[in-house]
């Protein structure tokens, strides 16, 4: 996707290798076999994901400061018991990061030719996808539990912030799931770049961190 011309490419350059149409010209893996596009010029994807992370951090910093101000604004704040399923969800989300890292490792060995199975990469990617969906389902269960306790969006500021935080995080995680689907599709077409997978993984791990942060904030404040 991205091209840089001021940085030397970090792969082995073959002087006479023909150009491919994917920005991988002149780059071949260590094994000498070019099976997947291995694009080291994906600096923009790497920078881009940090830019996205910065923006999301600002958004949640705004939500957090809103919560702190709102809590101090009046005495109507009622503490609520956190639904227990949240802890299970946390484990699920952390596990999804592990499977994604496994997928990345397998992909790396697949590209350089030390592993021939593409199914291994796909299995790990699908596992991540499934765990992500499970997490979202778990969050929905938490909402149902709150609802059963009579705590709705407008019941109390604490429940308002609970719904806002979990919904905002869930929406961002949906973005991560879309990213994973894109990665799987590109992999199926043999057009996946390491930069793209790396960006998707960075985003996913950030979603983990963000959730841990939100859990801490909710646990402390709600």
């Amino acid at each position, binding site marked *: *996707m*991205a*091209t*840089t*011309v*001021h940085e030397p*490419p970090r792969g082995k*350059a073959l002087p006479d290798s023909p*150009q491919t*149409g*994917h*920005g991988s*010209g*002149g780059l071949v893996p260590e094994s000498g076999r070019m099976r997947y596009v291995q694009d080291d*010029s994906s*600096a*923009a*994807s790497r*920078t*881009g994901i940090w*830019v*996205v992370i*910065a*923006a*999301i951090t*600002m*958004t949640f*910093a*705004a*939500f957090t*400061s*809103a919560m702190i*101000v*709102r809590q101090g*604004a*009046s*005495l*109507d*704040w009622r503490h609520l018991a956190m639904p227990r399923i949240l802890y299970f969800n946390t484990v699920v989300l952390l596990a999804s990061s592990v499977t994604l890292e496994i997928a990345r490792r397998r992909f790396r060995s697949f590209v350089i030719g030390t592993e021939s199975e593409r199914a291994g990469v796909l299995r790990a990617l699908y596992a991540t996808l499934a765990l992500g969906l499970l997490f979202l389902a778990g969050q929905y269960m938490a909402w149902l539990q709150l609802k059963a306790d009579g705590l709705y*969006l*407008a019941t109390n*500021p604490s429940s*308002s912030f609970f719904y*806002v935080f979990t919904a*905002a995080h869930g929406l961002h995680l949906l973005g991560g799931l879309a990213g994973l689907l894109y990665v799987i599709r590109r992999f199926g077409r043999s057009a996946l770049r390491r930069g793209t997978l790396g960006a998707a993984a960075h985003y996913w791990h950030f979603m983990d961190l963000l959730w841990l942060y939100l859990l801490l904030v909710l646990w402390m404040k709600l």
Partner: protein
Amino acid sequence: MHDVSPHAVHHHAPPQGFIRKHVFSLDHKVIGKQYYALALVAVFTGMVLSWLMRLHLGWPALAIPGLHLLSKVGAPGDLMTPEYYLQLMTMHGTIMVFFVLTTAPFAAFGNFFLPIQVGAEDMPFPRFNMMSFWVTFVAFVVLIAAFFVGGGPPLSGWTAYAPLSAVGAVAGPGQGTGQVLWAASIAIFCVGQLLGSLNFITTTLDLRTKGMSLMRLPLSAWAWFITSCMGLTAFAVLLPACILLILDHVAGTSFFVASNLVVNDQLQPHSGGSTLLWQHLFWFFGHPEVYIAIVPAMGIVSHVLITNMRRPLLSAKVIIASMTSIAFLSYMVYGHHMFVSGMNPFSSLVFSFPTLIITIPATIITLIWIGSLYGSKLRINSASLFALGFISMFVSGGVSGFFLAQPSIDIMLHATYFVVGHFHLVMAVAAIFGIFAGTYFWFPKMTGRMMNETLGKIHFWLSFVGAYCIFMPFHYLGIMGNVRRYAEFVDEYLQPVLGVHKFITVAALVTGAAQLIFLYNLIHSRFWGEKAPENPWEATSLEWSVPSPPPFDNFGGRHPVVYHDPYQYGVKGSKGDYIMQDSPEPSPSGD
């Protein structure tokens, strides 16, 4: 001269068909022009709204023929109600700040020229870029839709202060559906600008061509980069604020509405919210937004001035450092909008200091412009005139900022026309002059045609004199204590101000009409203007090394190599008194 790099690949193939070429285009140049067109529609909409307001202020009993067609309730018998005045004012402010001052200097010119100035074929994420424009377009449509819903647009001003913006229709016409549409529009707008900022930052950091170090970027590119960093952090805060506002409206939450609030004799079913919370969130975005409007104009003006002075600025590095420190400080000053909000007076003092400090980099930039202009043989054309006009407006508007930055003086001047005059000059008119300078300068590159210079100069003088006639008396009114956001001044004791308001209204109508000259020039030149050469201004930066208009991939498949900074003027070059950035010939300074 040109690098045949193995990376010389296109991100996407040239599009076929009208829709892909001109509507859902991935090409940054088309997206830039789309943003410009949107800003043009928005600026004339906003201007007409200001005309209606001015007419009513000057002649409160005047029936404006046809006004009832816009709103039967708001203008029965073509007479504007006070509520409708506020509704027009809200829409004027919102349209101008978001859809003109943010889109034109930043998104429009930045999209078109940033990739070319850094030597790239496009932005790294063209689909996000396309989405950025169309999302912004949807935001505009949602905002305009507020005119056509029951109750009409909101009347809470472009700042939408809570709690009246959060309690619904009980707070007045337009505070129900209109206000929700407003908040939704701004939230959507935020998404569009975040996507744009993502592309601007990655383009600047990662797509620079060989030899284009950061310090060799033209000042305009620096300005867009700095602005995109501000946009990224500021819009990311306004977005959640709008979401919370919408929730207060439609879901009955109490983020911004306090307990026991009675509006129009009705007790509100909210409790415990913080009214000031909205102001904190809004102004944390709102003050950087001022610089999001002005910093790109600073970059454009520097770029235009250097080219027309035929010599570099006294120090480009100091300009870059000053713009960066302005961006940094812009997050620490926002509380100066809230001096009289009931905030702890100590906080006012804390916000007052950085507000006064931020004038230092702004003054440094101005002094560098003026010092560089001193003794230069400036080429007078429409672009350079508007650049000079920008400096004039920026200084005139900036000086009143010194007064407002001090809480003790602000208590007197707050919510008067003094403030309105201040921000219109320093932010609105100055940024608009920057947009005009950019338009006259880059129009040949964007369209392949020259604009008419005579019409451009007439446009400048009418706008320059007109803007002062409109906004200088505002300061006078403010010092007299004339409050803002009042629909009419009909009481006996207000008669002395009415004459001034009439004068301002006439000036606004004439100055507004002068903009039709610009519109005519723009449209006529687009189709029938003289054909533009590749480099009509004998400029050095990369956009002038490609045909006018540039081909689909900007550089025709080649990758330019940059050998110089963009300030090689007043030197002996093969083409004249300048050396292009991508020319391998040696420069005397070696830069």
